[in-house]
C-alpha cells in the first residue's frame, strides 16, 4: 500500500491510529482524579509531541542514516518559526503560506550551512554546525532584534499589515477560517477529552512527514545514506559522490526542522530566539538517541518522552504530592513526599538526567529496543519477525569494521 512494504504499512497504520486517538489515549485518568496530573491529552502538549516528533524524524534522516551529527539543527527550527510569524504578520493568518515559507527558508538556510559544514566530517562537522547555530542564536537575541524582536520573541500584533486578509478575517492562525485554537471537549463520565483543530492539523502533517520518512528510509537514496555512514571510502571507489548525498540529507532534515518550526509558530504565533540555542539543538540529538537513532519510530518516541517530562513533571509541586499521599498516616506521608519531591517540580531535570543514563546503559538501542524486549516477551521466540526496527537497533552495536 502507498508503495510501502507490508510491515512498514502496518507501522504507519499503527502510528496513524495512535495519533488519531491521542486525545483519548493520553488522557487515561478522570479529570478530577489525583492522577489527572499525568494526563497529557491537552492540545498544547499533544501539538508539541507531534511537532517535535517531526523535528526528530527529520534529524534522524541526517544523523540516523548518514551518521553526521549536527549540533545546530535548532537554527533551522528557529528560522522556520521566524519565517512563519513574518508571513502571518505581513500576508495572512492562514497557516498554509506560513508553513510553506518556513520550509523553503529553512531549506535555503540549510543549503548554505550544509554546504560549508559538510566539507568536514566527524566532530569537526558537529562543531561547525554548532558554531553556525550559536551565531544565529546570539545575533537573533541581540543585533537582529528588528527582525526577531530579540528576547521577547516575534509576536503578531493587531496593527500588522496582513495585506491578504480582509477586515473580517480571523486574528488567530487558521486554516481557511478554522482557527488553530478551536477545540471541543467531550465528557465521558469523569473523563474529558479535548479535540483541537491545531492538533489534528499537526497530526496530519506529522503522518505525511512520517510516511515520507519511511519512503526515504526504504528508497535507494536511503540505502546510499546508510552506505555513507558505513564506509565513505568504498562509496568513493564505487563511483558515488558522497557530498551531494550528505548535502541532500542535510537539506531534507533542515526542511523537516523548518516545518516543525513553522508548525510551532502556527500553533502559537510566537518565535523565540531560545529555539535556536545549542540546548535546543542538543535536545533533538537527545530525542533521537534516546528513542533509537536510525529507527523509524524511535525519534518520535524520544521526542514524546522528553516533552512529557518537561511539561508534566515540572508541574508537580509539593501540594500535588501531598494530595497523592494524603491517604497515608502523617509521618509516612511526609516521608514519601520528602523522597519524591527532589525529583519533580523544580527537580524534573534530575529525573530526566537519570533516565537518560538508565536508558543508554540498559537499552543501548534506545526506547525502541525497550519496546522490542517487551514485545519479545509476549511473542515467544518468534524468530522470523526480522523486524526492520530491531535490525537498525542492532546495527548500532556492530563494532566498526576492522
Amino acid at each position: 500500500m502507498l508503495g510501502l512494504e507490508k510491515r512498514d504499512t502496518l507501522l504507519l497504520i499503527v502510528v496513524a491510529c495512535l495519533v488519531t486517538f491521542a486525545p483519548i489515549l493520553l488522557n487515561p485518568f478522570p479529570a478530577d482524579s489525583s492522577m489527572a496530573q499525568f494526563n497529557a491529552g491537552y492540545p498544547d502538549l499533544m501539538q508539541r509531541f507531534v511537532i517535535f516528533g517531526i523535528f526528530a524524524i527529520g534529524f534522524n534522516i541526517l544523523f540516523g542514516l548518514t551518521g553526521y551529527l549536527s549540533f545546530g539543527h535548532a537554527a533551522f527550527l528557529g528560522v522556520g518559526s521566524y519565517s512563519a510569524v513574518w508571513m502571518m504578520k505581513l500576508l495572512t493568518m492562514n497557516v498554509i503560506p506560513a508553513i510553506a515559507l518556513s520550509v523553503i527558508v529553512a531549506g535555503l538556510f540549510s543549503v548554505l550551512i550544509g554546504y560549508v559544514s559538510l566539507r568536514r566530517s566527524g566532530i569537526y562537522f558537529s562543531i561547525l554546525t554548532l558554531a553556525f547555530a550559536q551565531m544565529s542564536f546570539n545575533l537573533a537575541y541581540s543585533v537582529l532584534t528588528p527582525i526577531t524582536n530579540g528576547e521577547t520573541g516575534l509576536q503578531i500584533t493587531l496593527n500588522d499589515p496582513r495585506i491578504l486578509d480582509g477586515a473580517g478575517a480571523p486574528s488567530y492562525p487558521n486554516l481557511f477560517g478554522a482557527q488553530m485554537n478551536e477545540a471541543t471537549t467531550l465528557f465521558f463520565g469523569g473523563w474529558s477529552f479535548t479535540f483541537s483543530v491545531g492538533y489534528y492539523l499537526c497530526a496530519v502533517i506529522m503522518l505525511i512527514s512520517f510516511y515520507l520518512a519511511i519512503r526515504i528510509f526504504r528508497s535507494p537514496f536511503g540505502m546510499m545514506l546508510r552506505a555513507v555512514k558505513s564506509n565513505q571510502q568504498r562509496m568513493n571507489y564505487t563511483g558515488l559522490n558522497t557530498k551531494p548525498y550528505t548535502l541532500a540529507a542535510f537539506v531534507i532534515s533542515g526542511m523537516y526542522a523548518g516545518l516543525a518550526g513553522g508548525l510551532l509558530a502556527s500553533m502559537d504565533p510566537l518565535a523565540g530566539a531560545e529555539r535556536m540555542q545549542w540546548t535546543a539543538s542538543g535536545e533533538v540529538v537527545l530525542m533521537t538517541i534516546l528513542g533509537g537513532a536510525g529507527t523509524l519510530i524511535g525519534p518520535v518516541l524520544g521526542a514524546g518522552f522528553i516533552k512529557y517530562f518537561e511539561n508534566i513533571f515540572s508541574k508537580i509541586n509539593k501540594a500535588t504530592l501531598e494530595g497523592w499521599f494524603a491517604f497515608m498516616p502523617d509521618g509516612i506521608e511526609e516521608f514519601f513526599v520528602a523522597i519524591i519531591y527532589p525529583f519533580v517540580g523544580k527537580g524534573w531535570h534530575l529525573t530526566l538526567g537519570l533516565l537518560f543514563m538508565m536508558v543508554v546503559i540498559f537499552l543501548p538501542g534506545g526506547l525502541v529496543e525497550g519496546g522490542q524486549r517487551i514485545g519479545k516477551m509476549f511473542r515467544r521466540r518468534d524468530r522470523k519477525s526480522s523486524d526492520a526496527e530491531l535490525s537498525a537497533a542492532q546495527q548500532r552495536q556492530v563494532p566498526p569494521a576492522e
Partner: protein
Amino acid sequence: MGILEVKNVGKRFGGLQALSNVNLTVEENSVHAIIGPNGAGKSTLLNCLVGKLIPDTGSVMFDGQSVLGRKPYEINQMGISRVFQTPEIFADLTVMENMLIPCFAKRDGSFRMHALESMMNEKDIVGKAEHMLEEMKLIDKRAMHAAAMSRGDKRRLEIAMCLAQDPRLLLLDEPTAGMARADTNNTIDLLKQIKEERNITIAIIEHDMHVVFSLAERITVLAQGTPLVEDTPDKIKGHPKVKEAYLGETQAA
C-alpha cells in the same frame, strides 16, 4: 597502446622520493602484476592511479583520457574499480544491499536523488544484484550483515561489487594478504574464472609470488620507487636484478 598508460610519474612525501620516473603500460585484456619488496612504492603508485594521490610529475592516461586531478568517484565512473588489501565493504549493510549499491552506481552515475522511489520498482537492479550474488555463491547469505561474514566471503563480496560495475580495469591490492593457503587458492581460481568469463583487464599488486605466477601475463618489478624490469613471468623468474631486489624472498614464496 595500452588501456592504462603511466608516464614519468613521480611522487615525493617530504624528504622521501616515493616514486620516480615510473613508466608502465597495461595492455587491454591482460593480467598485469606489479611486484616489489616492502616500501617499493606499489601502494603509492596504486593510489596515484585511482585519484587518492596526485603525482607531482608525469601523466596517467586511462583509455586515452587523463585521470589526474579527477576525484576517485569520477575515475571509478570512467571504468576503474579497486579491490583493497583489507576488504572495504559496507559492513553495516546486508550482503544484498552491498551488492545493490554498485548496481545503482553503474546505472545512475555518481549521484541521483531517488529519495522517494521504491526498491520494489527496481526489478532490473535487484535482478542484476541477485545474479551477481549467485555467480559468487553468496546468494544464501543475502540477508546477512556484511560485517558478520568470514574474511574470504568479504573478499568475494568486494570483488563481486567491483565486477557489478562492469569495470574495464580491475585493480587488486594484495587480494590474498593474510589469507590461508586454501583461501588463497580459491581466490586465484576465482580471478582466473573472472578473466576467462569477462572481457576485463586486471592489474594486481601482490607480494605472494605464488599468486603472481599463477595469474600474471606480464610483470613489472618495482624497487625503491622506480620500475626495475618489466617482462613475462618466465623471464622474471630467473632475472638477476629481481633476485637481488628480493634477496631470497622469491624462495620463501
